[in-house]
């Protein structure tokens, strides 16, 4: 893959100012008093990047470099870009283009990611750069994850600025989410360290397609993780997600073993991965290898991206999947993206009463007392404060 020229940031800024929007925006922000926060006003620029030497690169013969961050183990010729679109060989040295240039930076409720067992009702700062090391045909954020950094607008946000932004907005956590944090590993690691020092908690939402060693390095900084387990069939992973199943399972075990508060999201895509037997096997595996108390979100598929002509998941399919998951002994099985569904609520495994009632990302009722069910006192796993 050819290296693309990253647009020089000053050029991008000049263009933007030319359009007259930057000035107007600055005036507005000052006038409206929104700029009072510690974070300075940020005007995104197209193709903005801060190329910098990356970790997990090793030199190989012929001026090549090998990236050992994820299981692809890309060997890159000089000038070549890795599958993730953000890591490259620059004259024999491994560089990342996903550092300090988030494409997505937004505040939102943690339930939206979804984290159902972490600080209910709290708001988090989500952050993601361009790029992904998988290629899911049902990607919801393909215009962010499956593009080169040159193609989209990015904010100039060094790690410290991110922390500043989160703190000044009074947020409790930083989430590496929506895109794929594995590909902005170095950036995530630095922010996570600073966040830990600043007393913010770190939330990781990932497909977990990463090598054990780099994962091991970041895990101590992560408070909670939601892993997209997209299927339980290696062929599905290969054909529909452009990845491999085994490394994801390995990462799940590692996260759990390290004591990270773990949740799993499993999209149910009609005809592609909603086979009952496979689902049952997956639930048994989760129970045996990770524990019955790991929350599982069964997410509804809506026709999008490359699968735009496939009908949405019938709710009856989700209901049946939820029943199967509960039958196998999983204690917290949720239905995601069906607003108002009973499966959005958390039920106490002890007494069966609802401890958290949700509608979408809104908390309607909360019956938790210091992490325990206020009906029966049963401990509910999670990071509740």
């Amino acid at each position, binding site marked *: 893959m050819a290296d693309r020229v990253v647009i020089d940031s000053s050029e991008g800024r000049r263009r933007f100012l030319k359009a007259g929007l930057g000035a107007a*925006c600055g005036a507005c922000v000052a006038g409206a008093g929104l700029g009072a926060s510690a974070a300075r006003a940020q005007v995104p620029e197209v193709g903005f990047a801060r190329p910098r030497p990356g970790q997990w690169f090793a030199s190989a013969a012929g001026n090549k470099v090998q990236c050992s961050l994820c299981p692809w183990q890309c060997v890159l010729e000089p000038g070549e870009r890795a599958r993730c679109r953000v890591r490259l060989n620059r004259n024999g040295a491994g560089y990342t283009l996903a550092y300090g240039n988030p*494409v997505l930076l937004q505040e*939102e409720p943690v339930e939206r990611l979804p984290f159902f067992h972490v600080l209910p009702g709290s708001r988090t700062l989500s952050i993601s750069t361009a790029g992904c090391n998988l290629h899911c045909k049902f990607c919801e*954020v393909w215009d962010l994850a499956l593009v080169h950094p040159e193609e989209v607008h990015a904010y100039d946000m060094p790690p410290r600025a991110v922390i500043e932004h989160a703190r000044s907005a009074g947020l409790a956590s930083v989430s590496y989410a929506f895109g794929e944090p594995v590909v902005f590993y170095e950036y995530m690691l630095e922010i996570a360290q600073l966040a830990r020092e600043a007393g913010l908690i770190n939330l990781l939402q990932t497909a977990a397609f990463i090598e054990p060693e780099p994962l091991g390095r970041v895990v101590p900084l992560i408070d909670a993780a939601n892993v997209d387990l997209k299927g339980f069939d290696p062929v599905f992973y290969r*054909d529909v997600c452009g990845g491999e199943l085994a490394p994801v399972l390995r990462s799940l075990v590692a996260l759990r073993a390290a004591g990270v508060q773990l949740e799993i999201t499993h999209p149910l895509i009609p005809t592609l991965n909603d086979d009952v037997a496979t689902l049952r096997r997956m639930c048994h595996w989760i129970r045996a290898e990770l524990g019955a108390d790991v929350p599982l979100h069964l997410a509804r598929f809506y026709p999008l991206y490359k699968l735009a002509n*496939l009908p949405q998941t019938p709710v009856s399919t989700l209901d049946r999947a939820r029943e199967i998951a509960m039958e196998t002994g999983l204690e917290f099985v949720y239905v995601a993206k069906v607003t108002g569904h009973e499966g959005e609520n958390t039920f106490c495994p002890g007494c069966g009463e609802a401890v958290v009632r949700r509608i979408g990302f809104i908390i309607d009722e909360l019956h938790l007392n210091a992490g325990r069910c206020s009906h029966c006192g049963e401990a509910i796993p999670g990071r509740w404060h």
Partner: protein
Amino acid sequence: MPGRVSGRTIPPHIGSVLMLGAVSQVTQIVLLRELLMIFHGNELSIGIILAAWMAWVGVGSALGAAIAGRSRRVLDVLLLNAAVLLPVLLLTVTVIRGLRGFYDVLPGAYLSLVDIIAGSLLVMAPACLLIGMQFVLLARLWRDADRSEHTGGAGKTYIGEAIGSILGGLAFTFVMVRHLSSFQSVALAGLLVAAAVLWCAQRSETSVRPARPLVRSVVIALLVTAGVALAGLGTLDQWAYQLQWRQLAPDHVLLEVHQSKYGNIAIARRDDQYSFFRSGHLMFATAGPETREPQFEAQEAAVFAHFAMTQHPRPAEVLLIGGGLRGTLAEIIRHPVERVDYVELDPVLTRAALPHLPGATRAALADPRVRLVHSDGRVYVRQASRGYDLVIIDVPDPATAVLNRFYTREFFGQVNALLNPGGLLAIAVVSTPGLRGGAVANRNATLHHTLGSVFGEVLPVGDRFLVFLASDAPGLISTDPAGLRRRYLEREVRSPAFSPHHFQLLLEDGQLRRVNWILRSHGRSSTAQLTAPEAAPLPTPTVYEQKALEAGWPPVNERAFINSDFRPIGYFYTLMFWGDLTRAGSAEPLRRLLHVQAWWVLPPIGALLLLALALRVVGRRPDRQFAVGLAVFTTGLSTMALQVALLFSFQSVYGFIYEMVGLVVAIFMAGLAAGTATTHRSVKRKANTGLLAAVQLAIAAAATLIAILLPPAAAVESAVIVFALFSTLTFAAGFLNGVDFPLATECFRALNRRAERSAGLVYGLELAGACVGAAIASAVVAPIIGITACCVLAAAANATACAALLVSRTSDGG
């Protein structure tokens, strides 16, 4: 003996020629419909399929010319051709049904452009080659029957074929689509053409050798076998559909397939979910009558309906265009409305869907406050006299020129005129949550700015499903979840699919600010359509602040961000978005077309004229051949460019009435036939390049006149006058193009001395021109530069041909 009318002999091959026209029209429609099930029903797919059709028919006519020139056994060849055509047509339909199996593609995924091009070319080759050959062979027979050396036979064949295709088109639209499957339609067409050819072979009084008895017997045997086999076509049809649906939507049960003139409607079931497809394209999925909790299947529709309904303080009179079957209607009538007029295009869809819909939707359709009107939404809005408090437009995204009519400035203007004071419009499209891609941002910003050019206030809300609210009443549109919630509760609406919390979810502040910023700020520079949209600054101003800021921003780039009937850019952006979504696709190749400028037509014109001059130096014959060839090519091109322009304008202005569109095509073909007949009868010396040049000039002048007349014609209020105007313009365009054919063919013959080669060449060149014209007019010129530019393109093309002809004439001083 041949039949006699008023003492004049009707040659037996007329039947074959008419049949050829009819069979090619029916086959074209059937194959197009079948292929669109596999591809995607946008103009690009249609253009590619038609281009492949014309290309192969052109090659076929060249082959036919070669055979007719060398062999005297024309009748044998024709008979065998007709006999082979029937099984080939049946096989073609079968192969198309199973075509997805040849691609390595996931269920639910769109095929890429390369797939569509390769598939169209491969699948249609055999049938088109045979049909193309028939034209030249029949022209030869006609010439022999006339016992002449000139190309009059070709001219007559051309007229006969045009009339046959009108008949075929009408027969398909009014009869075959309702009563016959695709297999039955092509089988009937194939049988009729074979029978006509057989009759012709029996009766022919030409100098070509009579058909060999063996060939005749074989053909008769084949026909009889085919006739018997027709009984099994129903089973074949069912089998082929099952095969197709196993690839399109595996693990779904294909319940029913209905043929409607608007496309093939299929209903597939999976568990208790019913999915409705039009032409293989997912329209919507709903819960079934047996679903225990049907509310969640139609949640998107419910959210749209309640959000729109609560935006108005008292929506008593509501107009809903589309969407009623997917649940929107059932949710609307949960509010205390007095009347809901629900406009749905296709009665076949309503009838087919009804038994499979959840109880709430069926009850809604029976509600006394609801009036179901089967009509085109634009026709309805144009003719409606009563006012509405709220108009909800729930039609598919503007993926085609036809759908794009619900997203143009003119249409929004008509809707605005229908709204009562304080009224509101709501419309929605599929989007991406971040709006980062150029295609989707361009399309949605265009929708925003187009609404903004008509209404005083516009508000986009949502993420994956993006709702636009528009109104002229200041301060009516609300972004306050609490206020909307209060209104919802006060009306005591009870919807299992919706809760008052939804307002908060929908109007989540961060998303609302981001979406508004992107759509309001995008499209304000001359090159905005070529770049990714500006992302929102941090912190993002509130919607209120953004409105204040807008006053200081540069104006909207109207050329690229206002969707109008006469420059339907909206569907081009949707086409780009579709490009992003196809199997291996990206919007990049289409994005490049956005650079197209009107002046780009000048360099090719210059190059062609230079070439004409250069050839003149070489000698008399090559430059004449080139000039005549160019005239034929440009006539084909302008024929299609004008037809696209007229059809687009007609559809937009008059409304989409399928029969009317068929009628417009028929009028065009009638003009074509009349033009050809006129030249044929009245022009004595047809091999006259001066006359041909004059015709080119006349076409150019007519195209210019149409360009000038279209916009004022569109503004005329009376539907009758509009129709009369369009009919006249359409007939005139067809007539002038028809005049061209006999002249050009005879000019070629004068240069080449071979009648069939000339006819084949002219037919092929004209088809090639038509291919290019259809493709660039519908997919590029109309949406990017404008409908009138299609006419100007036609004018420029024919003017160039005229100039080239004049240059070539000067070589012999003539």
